[in-house]
């Protein structure tokens, strides 16, 4: 089993939920498929979707909801299938 890291290509604020009232996109331990949205980064008054690049299981998140994030910073680790 290989691990892949999801990295933010842009700086901004990281969100795990699509909106304040809604639930998180994914939890640790959830199965995700390549291309699935796992979070948002807000910058320049727009929201950029962060997507899983591989099919697998979310091992862990490296950043909290609403924390600021830099370009190149790790968001999550996925245990690829």
């Amino acid at each position, binding site marked *: 089993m290989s691990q892949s890291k999801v990295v933010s290509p842009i700086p901004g604020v990281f969100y795990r939920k699509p909106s304040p009232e809604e639930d998180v996109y994914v939890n640790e331990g959830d199965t995700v498929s390549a291309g699935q949205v796992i979070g948002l980064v807000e910058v*320049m008054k727009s929201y950029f979707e962060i997507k899983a690049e591989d099919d697998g299981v979310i091992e862990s998140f490296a950043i909290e909801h609403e924390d*600021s994030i830099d370009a190149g910073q790790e968001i999550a680790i996925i245990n690829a299938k």
Partner: protein
Amino acid sequence: MIHVISPGLETTVQDTGRIGFYEVGMPPSGAMDKYSYTAGNLLVGNNESAASLEITYLGPVLEFQEDTIIAVTGGDIPPKINGKSVPMWEALEIKAGDKLSFDFVKQGARVYVAVAGGIDVPEIMNSRSTYTLCGIGGLNGGKLQENDKLQIGNEKVRDIQPGTRIADHLIPAFDKHHEIRVVLGLCSYRLTEESKERFFSIDWKVTPEANRVGYRFKGERLNFVERDQPFGAGSNPSNVVDLGYPIGSIQVPDGVEPIALLNDAVTGGGYATIATIISADLNMLGQVKTNETVRFVSVDIDEALAARNEVKEKLAEIKQNLSS
């Protein structure tokens, strides 16, 4: 022709800007880092005011459908041709069918893609620059979209050999902490002495609200001198009656979170502008990313003009090197 396979986060067509309409409320737009933009045009043999692509944070994927020469300048967003890394600040040969893409941003915030001949979009009020808030200029008035087609223009004025490079000492370096020089005014008299001192002695963190319109900074509250507000100024002490906003002017609505107004900003209004970023350092500010820090440094108008001349001399040196 250039086919936009994916547009990146915010890729726009920009040139030297829409100059001469400020008094009717039209901001100039244009390249945020004019030094890198101009160097790019010089590297591909273009007229200095030819339109280029300005990329912010996340690069596009572009497919060139004709042979040409390009150059990528600005912050460090490493370019690749057909998946292979290529240098920045160098004239690069492109063959029809080649794909230009980018790695994640390393330093700086914006890069410029200059194409021999320039990007050919219609001129609106003497400029090809995109002003997205008004939906004018550039390609259809906005940032690039998937499947857009860009025409290459005829603004090439000299032949440049592929592999020609900008000399190392003329390539700017970008850091995560920035010193940005400002001239105090026009309304700095409205700040208390203590707040004036604090403005220059703390690090200001760039918020996610930082784009071509303006950059908003987090630090601490600044206080204005108490007074009975004059008629028309509104009740908040950060208000004055009305004034034009120079490009790079910094206002502090309600004393919280200073905002530096940039190329696409509103041209006037009623906030006290406490300082103005010098033109030489506007290039640098355009390379500052969200979450990075800025320390403002006070200079006088003579130092500002000397810094402006230094930039001009560096560009003249680039021009000299490329034409000899």
